[in-house]
């Protein structure tokens, strides 16, 4: 039996009932008296100079209350990377140049959405079209049009990592392979489109309810964009229907809503359409990655040399972080004694890329894992065995970057081999079937302070009451990942209470302690969880003082909060009920309530994260050899997310990751034509549905991590990466087709089968009429592998 009462148990989500019954109110469900409806005017051109904007007719339309252009707003550039202001390249509305199809030019607020839409059609914009570029390589070539005045060669960020002697290591390797990969942009496709509702008081102070992952970041940046002080803006995060990294920045409609609310005195709500989200919303970076990796004959990796070109689209967004993380994740999973990385973030006239679940890892690990699988084949070593020979272990270091605080990667590999019956099924997969592997490692929160906050990274306030309840206040933002359940679980465990004893107030910048940097980088469980533990420890210390006095305990006794009591450890008879202890303490303190605030900021933990998760996944596929259609039948996952705080929640995260990985592997891409998105609907942007989901079997290898709360590590972001390489490997096993780009289509598979059957000419070259965003899907760079002589 578990030593824990609340953590480690399947505690149902506290928001589950409201969401399942439709009672949860999202921003788009909120309405206030006199509320106006806002809509954005967007650029139809990928790159153009704005010569003139005439809003006269729109302003004159009956029912229109405000029309805003860049001239009405303070001239402020913003962006998440406050630490490096030169990367802050966005204004809420385009000032004189539009840089992508969808760039925001103006906002309208009217008495209803139809009127606002009609007003948009009455705004006249004269453009002078400029030459545009749609992929990184063209953009950084000499003579390419400059997309931002300050960036001469369109390369806005360069990041390098280097340790050991890569050239010597590769020169001395028995086997070296170099491959070029092109990965496509994909959408977060969160089910709730971005939405916000702004109100202003008589003094012009703003309350913004918004569908965000980062209320604190929005508060700070919105204040700066409007010329207000930080605390003259209050940001509230209501129920949020997913974000996956796409809602972690200040966005133009938030600035416009707040501005119009201040200007008109009326509440203003914006709700984006699905078409706007798919055509103009943030995306995962399209990337071109060249990777050269060397092995000894026995499979030991000797070095790796990686270059990555990130198609950032028109603005930096979270590109600076992505550019570093691709380098970080390319060096994960295995021991790379010599390593060199150079990443460049290139502006193009595509819709901007941003953070998306895994930020840099899905691309980097598709490359790493595909190369491991290809190398295993050529070295004639079983792919799992090759991984075991190189797997990162607890205590391994990445020079100047990180130390592996805990790793059960090897155990995961062994477990997934058992679960999937790997050896047998690899040898005898059955006709049209295949088995493949992919692995992952991911950060549990970022330690790099790019937002340049002066606050602790996470904070938690705990108010203990004499009635036996406690109130937890935290700015941590549940966007569906489950922290509104897990943080109370941690607090309940720490104070020996039940879930129903905890009341939660979360993610309101005026009510909850500052700060919490938001939901990204799989940081919340570890960082906010540790802040909750810190607050709980402070509360306990007070209660223990009171209990020791009251119970006349010998100083040798240890105390504990358990089962609703404050008591001597090992002496359950010597205790007092939690609420009674609180009441006595308050009386002793002459009425002062028992309130403590806990904090967490990672220090002395390298450049990346306090600790990494690890895992291994095997996919089983079936291919219809006549139609080329791929069915993923089963996915086995063994993962190391430290101690599991809520098994049901971890399983849910894994299912979500598999769904995203499946789409990345087999169906999701943007069809672009000169910067315009041709498939901006769920009809043609093909996200896998429930019917496409494979069976999932999973095991957690529970080795408590020294840095996570109760030993927990991240569980919701890492597993998004292994699915695509595992599926690709399984498809290769079944058909011989080895993907260097995604998604793998039925047509790719048929072409490979034709080649295998010796009628290569029967099948026309891949139709190139609708290239994916910044991704030459036709590219088929052949490896320059040297097989040991």
């Amino acid at each position, binding site marked *: 039996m578990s030593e824990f009462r609340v953590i480690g148990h399947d505690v149902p989500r506290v928001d589950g009932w409201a969401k399942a019954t439709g009672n949860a109110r999202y921003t788009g469900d909120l309405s206030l008296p006199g509320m106006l409806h806002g809509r954005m005017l967007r650029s139809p051109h990928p790159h153009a100079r704005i010569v003139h904007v005439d809003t006269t007719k729109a302003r004159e339309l009956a029912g229109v209350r405000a029309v805003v252009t860049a001239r009405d707003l303070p001239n402020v550039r913003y962006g998440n990377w406050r630490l490096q202001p030169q990367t802050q390249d966005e204004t809420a509305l385009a000032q004189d140049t539009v840089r992508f199809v969808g760039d925001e030019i103006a906002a309208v607020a009217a008495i209803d959405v*139809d009127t606002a*839409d*009609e007003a948009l059609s009455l705004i006249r914009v004269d453009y002078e079209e400029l030459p545009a570029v749609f992929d990184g390589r063209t953009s950084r070539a000499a003579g390419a049009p400059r997309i931002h005045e300050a960036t001469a060669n369109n390369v806005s960020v360069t990041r390098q990592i280097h340790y050991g002697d890569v050239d010597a290591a590769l020169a001395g390797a028995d086997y070296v392979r170099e491959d070029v990969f092109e990965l496509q942009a994909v959408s977060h496709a969160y089910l709730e489109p971005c939405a916000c509702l702004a109100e202003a008081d008589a003094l012009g102070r703003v309350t913004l309810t918004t569908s965000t992952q980062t209320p604190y970041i929005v508060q700070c940046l919105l204040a700066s964009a409007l010329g207000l002080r930080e605390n003259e803006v209050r940001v509230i995060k209501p129920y949020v229907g997913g974000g996956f990294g796409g809602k972690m920045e200040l966005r133009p409609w938030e600035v416009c809503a707040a501005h119009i609310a201040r200007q008109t005195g009326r509440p203003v709500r914006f709700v984006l359409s699905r078409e706007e989200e798919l055509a103009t919303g943030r995306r995962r970076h399209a990337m071109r990655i060249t990777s050269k990796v060397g092995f000894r004959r026995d499979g030991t990796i000797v070095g790796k040399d990686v270059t990555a070109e990130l198609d950032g689209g028109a603005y930096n967004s979270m590109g600076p972080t992505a550019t570093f993380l691709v380098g970080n994740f390319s060096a994960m999973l295995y021991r790379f004694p010599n390593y060199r990385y150079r990443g460049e973030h290139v502006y193009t006239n595509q819709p901007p890329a941003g953070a998306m679940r895994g930020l840099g890892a899905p691309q980097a690990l598709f490359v790493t894992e595909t190369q491991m699988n290809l190398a295993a084949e050529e070295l004639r070593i079983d792919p799992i065995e090759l991984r075991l020979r190189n797997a990162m272990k607890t205590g391994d270091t990445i020079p100047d970057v990180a130390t592996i605080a805990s790793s059960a990667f090897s155990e995961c590999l062994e477990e997934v081999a058992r679960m999937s019956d790997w050896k047998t099924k690899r040898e005898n997969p059955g006709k049209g079937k295949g088995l493949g592997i992919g692995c992952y490692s991911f950060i549990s929160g970022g330690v790099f302070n790019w937002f340049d906050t002066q606050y602790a990274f996470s904070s938690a306030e705990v108010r203990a009451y004499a009635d036996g309840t406690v109130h937890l206040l935290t700015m941590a933002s549940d966007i569906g990942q489950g922290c509104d359940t897990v943080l109370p679980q941690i607090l309940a465990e720490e104070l020996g209470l039940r879930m129903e004893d905890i009341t939660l107030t979360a993610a309101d910048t005026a009510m909850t302690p500052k700060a919490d940097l938001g939901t990204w980088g799989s940081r919340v469980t570890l960082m906010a969880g540790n802040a909750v533990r810190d607050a709980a420890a402070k509360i306990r210390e007070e209660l223990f003082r009171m209990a020791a006095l009251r119970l006349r305990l010998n100083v040798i006794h240890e105390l504990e909060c358990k089962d609703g009591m404050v008591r001597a450890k090992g002496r359950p008879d010597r205790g007092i009920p939690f609420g009674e202890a609180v009441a006595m303490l308050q009386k002793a303190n002459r009425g002062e309530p028992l309130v403590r605030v806990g904090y967490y900021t990672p220090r002395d933990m390298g450049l990346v994260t306090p600790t990494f998760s690890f895992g291994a996944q095997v996919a089983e596929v079936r291919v219809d050899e*006549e*139609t*080329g*259609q791929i069915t993923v039948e089963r996915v086995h996952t063994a993962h190391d997310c430290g101690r599991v705080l809520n098994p049901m929640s971890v399983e849910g995260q894994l299912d979500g990751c598999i769904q995203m990985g499946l789409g990345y592997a*087999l*169906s999701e891409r943007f*069809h672009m034509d000169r910067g315009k998105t*041709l*498939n901006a609907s769920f*009809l*043609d942007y*093909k*996200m*896998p*549905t429930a*019917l*496409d989901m494979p069976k999932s079997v999973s095991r957690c290898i529970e080795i408590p991590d020294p840095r996570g709360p109760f030993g927990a590590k991240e569980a919701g972001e890492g597993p998004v990466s292994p699915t695509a390489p595992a599926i690709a490997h399984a498809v290769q096993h079944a058909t011989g087709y080895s993907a260097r780009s995604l998604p793998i*289509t*039925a*047509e790719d598979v*048929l072409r490979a089968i034709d080649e295998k059957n010796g009628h290569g000419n029967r*099948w*026309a070259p*891949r*139709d190139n*009429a*609708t290239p994916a965003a910044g991704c030459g899907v036709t590219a088929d760079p052949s490896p320059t592998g040297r097989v040991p002589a």
Partner: protein
Amino acid sequence: MSSMRFEHLRPKSTDELTALLARHAGRARILAGGTDLLPRLRRGLLSVDALISIGALPELRTLEVDAARGLRIGARVRIAEIAEHPLIQAHFPALVDAARVTATTQIRNMGTIAGNVCNASPCADNVPVLFARGATATLHSVRGFRTVPIDDSFFLSPGRTVIEPDEYLSFLRVPSTPPSTGVAYHNIEPRSRVDMTAASVAALVTVEDGRVRELRIVLGAVGPTPLRATEAEHALRGRPVDDTALAEAGELAATEARPISDVRASADYRRRMVAVLTRRALRTAIERALAQRSPT
């Protein structure tokens, strides 16, 4: 949007319906399930003066199923009703094949079979089977009524049919299955199990003494309108039922397809799939024909 400003009319009788259609002279659309119509209006792809709902007309709600006399499908019958009807499953399985793969559960619960026909989308799942089975549509207007076949003369181009602006479709009629005959529908949804059909084939085959006596092959989503693969039919008619004959018919049907490339699939892929689907649909239809003949 101005395209979302229109009158919503709800006639209480079919006479009132035809009068309204005549009065609005092509500026009105009939609203049944609305699953195609409303998104088109919302996106500004269509503008109308009036939407005429048939929701208050119970006579269009009827579904008559009779193995001997055939089907009579009223204009308001939902796609899901066809997909789940036990007698239709037993006697008209190809209609069920098509209805089950149409769009999503939600759309099947709202959308109608008649709407799927009237919308005249080249990739409509229910059309090739109706065509292969020799279904007819009855059309009414103030001028009277007429019955027309659901075949290549019914569909003029994507989104256009022979239905006049003042006419409405009251019901579809599907004849009973002839003896020793099987019908099947196979389709390809290339990117997900919930996708628009990229290519489809309906086949009707009458088998006699191990030979194909009569057949009909209809291709969907590989041309502006559903296409009958007459050369493939001709080549197979009278031949013994074997894999070679079916494969040849498939190859011929592929040459008769007129597919385009779009975001769902390339023309090459669609054409190749016509060969595969034709073969598979013929095989299923033959199995059904043989099963139907065997004593029960």
